């Protein structure tokens, strides 16, 4: 086994190239706020600019083919890109873009050649940022029970309905969603998967006030919305995967959302919490010398290491095209539940300081305070922890001999 990429001279040369390129191309003033809800429009535009620059080289979504704006890079090269971006506290994509991360994967698997060209190229080049529109007020864990309707009318679909917990700060260019295309068909065979341009007439986007806006495992969105559709006319060309095939199209991005792509990131909050305990003195002694705090540090560290290793394992399975089963939802389950437990451990170790982002008293510029909130909010995006367990059970084949297959990623 090898838990690290062993770099060939070719890869080391790539690192040199990436490092030099990033030094030239990362815009000035990219420092991001502790709370993603504080991301200014100016900062966002700089991130988008970086996205376009990365995209122009095929580095924004580097594993996809060049003909659609990807980079044709294999996992060992992508890891170099991720590592080098990580030095700036950034990752791929550098802003919330569920279109590339999730929707793009679905279009790649299920789209026609013409759709791939028209939709994937602007996404992978960073020209479009897209949102996913999945949950509805009455369809959360039971996602296949969505009620938003799309009725065919000539070369268009007329869309009516409501989606919730949507998007991010500062808008997007394109949205993708699942809608009911045939209400008379059975469950899972009645849905369509539709790309909808952001600015069409009849779309209303209203911000929601949440404890904080949690991510689905990618970059934090900063803000969520309710989106209303009132007789919105969408070109029929935008239906991906064919009539009433939307659920199968969705299995691809749901697989990713359930952790199937893995991750190669550390928990930065834990790293900074540990550093904080070492460097913060109370009564002349480092917090880390207090036996109780020391035990809390161990607890947080062990959990973050387990999640890191599960993420690495799943990343490897997915990128080396090995058979996958329950690993994605397991990663999602452990990442979420451990994050909440870690937040509580931090609360114990640091005390009420962990609950304030006051400039004078809040540790780490409010990072720990924000984590107290984001760990709670983060339990549910991309499927509740209970749903992750349900999927694990089906994939393992608990109580059944036919095991459900993991969603197609390629």
């Amino acid at each position: 086994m090898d838990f690290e990429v062993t770099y060939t001279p070719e890869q080391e040369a790539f690192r040199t190239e990436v490092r030099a390129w990033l030094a030239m191309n990362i815009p000035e003033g990219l420092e991001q706020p502790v709370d993603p809800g504080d991301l200014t429009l100016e900062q966002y535009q700089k991130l988008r600019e970086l996205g376009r620059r990365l995209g122009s080289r095929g580095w924004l979504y580097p594993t996809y083919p060049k003909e659609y704006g990807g980079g044709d890079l294999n996992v060992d090269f992508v890891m170099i890109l991720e590592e080098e971006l990580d030095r700036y506290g950034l990752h791929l994509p550098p802003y919330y873009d569920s279109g590339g991360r999730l929707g793009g994967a679905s279009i790649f698997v299920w789209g026609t050649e013409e759709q791939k060209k028209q939709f994937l190229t602007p996404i992978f080049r960073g020209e479009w940022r897209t949102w996913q529109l999945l949950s509805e007020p009455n369809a959360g864990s039971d996602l296949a029970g969505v009620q938003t309707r799309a009725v065919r009318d000539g070369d268009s679909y007329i869309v009516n309905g409501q989606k919730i917990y949507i998007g991010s700060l500062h808008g997007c260019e394109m949205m993708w969603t699942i809608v009911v295309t045939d209400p008379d068909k059975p469950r899972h065979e009645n849905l369509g998967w539709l790309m909808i341009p952001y600015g069409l007439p009849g779309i209303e986007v209203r911000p929601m006030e949440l404890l904080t806006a949690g991510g689905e495992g990618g970059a934090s969105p900063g803000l969520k919305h309710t989106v209303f559709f009132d007789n919105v006319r969408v070109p029929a060309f935008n239906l991906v995967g064919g009539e009433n095939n939307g659920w199968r199209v969705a299995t691809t991005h749901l697989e990713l959302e359930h952790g199937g792509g893995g991750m190669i990131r550390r928990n930065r909050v834990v790293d900074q919490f540990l550093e904080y305990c070492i460097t913060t003195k109370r009564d002349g002694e480092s917090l880390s010398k207090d036996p109780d705090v020391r035990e809390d540090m161990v607890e947080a560290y062990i959990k973050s290491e387990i999640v890191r290793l599960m993420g690495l394992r799943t990343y490897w399975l997915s990128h080396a095209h090995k058979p996958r089963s329950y690993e994605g939802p397991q990663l999602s389950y452990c990442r979420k539940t451990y994050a909440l437990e870690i937040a509580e451990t931090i609360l114990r170790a640091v005390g009420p300081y962990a609950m304030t982002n006051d400039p004078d008293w809040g540790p780490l510029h409010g990072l720990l305070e924000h984590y107290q909130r984001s760990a709670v909010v983060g339990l549910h995006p991309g499927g509740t922890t209970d749903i992750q367990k349900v999927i694990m059970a089906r994939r393992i084949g608990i109580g059944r001999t036919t095991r459900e297959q993991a969603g197609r990623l390629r």
Partner: protein
Amino acid sequence: MDLGLTEAQEILKTTAASFLQQEYPKETIIALESTPTGVTPELFRKVAELGWLGILIPEEYGGEGRSYTDAAVLFEELGRGPVAGPYFSSGILGALTVLHSGTEAQKRTILPQVASGERVISVAVTEPHYGWRPETVQLRASRQGDTYTLNGVKLFVHDAQAATHLLCAVRTSPPNNGASSGITLLLVDAKAPGVTIRTLPGWMAQVDEVRLHNVRVPAADVLGETEGQGWEALEAAAMQAIPILCAYQVGSCQTVFDISVAYSRTRVQFGQPIGRFQRVQDHIVNIVNNLDAARWTTYEALWKLDAGRPAAASVHLAKAVTSEAYLKVCDSGHEVHAGVGVIREYGLTLHTQRSRTLYHLLGDARYHRRRLADAMGW
């Protein structure tokens, strides 16, 4: 990055699995579970013939000289049984301790015999004042001329009944520069006059009390050139042996997972397989989460050892996670199986017993969590 096994490791895994299938059916494992040695001479000879007792011993000393990960792949298979017997005590911990402490001549004599199974080592460190820190080693050895005399008790010694030799950590001088100085490793003939080995009764298995009454050990049987340097060698050996012990535990967890999934499909209550009930599913999800946490922390530590990287923090992490996970996996296995799980012939209790018996070996979770904090420099 490659988290798969190498071809050689796959072969080793398959060989081990088919050997165990043939030689270690469940009935045999159950029959041997609570015997003093946990093994028959015939089985032990067969394992020795496969070279498994020398898997980590360098070729120049008559072993196979394979990697830590290779050894772990083998021990994961043994753990799947779970197979009892002094394989880990002698072939891994004993061999590594001799490798770290012995003189060149001692290594040339002892290690080939360990590899062939002719000599079986049990490592005796702990005492009634139980613990794995050097200060817990209090048994005094007094030297007169060329002979040491040992008096005292070694307690919770694994596989002493199966051993030809006891590798005893003893105190030859009081702690001078820190508690680890003054500890000497002596190789004591298990049949020497004054040695009494008694299997401890109860739920533990192959764990013994070793009483030493005026036991005379020639100075030539001190491992190493000088006395008082034993702890460092023991510690170095333990840090390499621990992840292999963890792999054994991982193997056992894997079996508990497999039989629990199988049972969830075949056991019918309320007209359906019990695995259809989400409460039951939760137990199995809990098993696989603990299993994978143990597996990947263990194999990362092994990779670091094999790659010659600083591995201390990872080794402590692996043992802290794995010992705890093993308990939880077995607990959840019992939740799934209910009454059937405690029928001895079913086999689940073999794993549960091991999870408890091995929990403290080479330091429990709490001990390794403290060591982890130290290793991280906090």
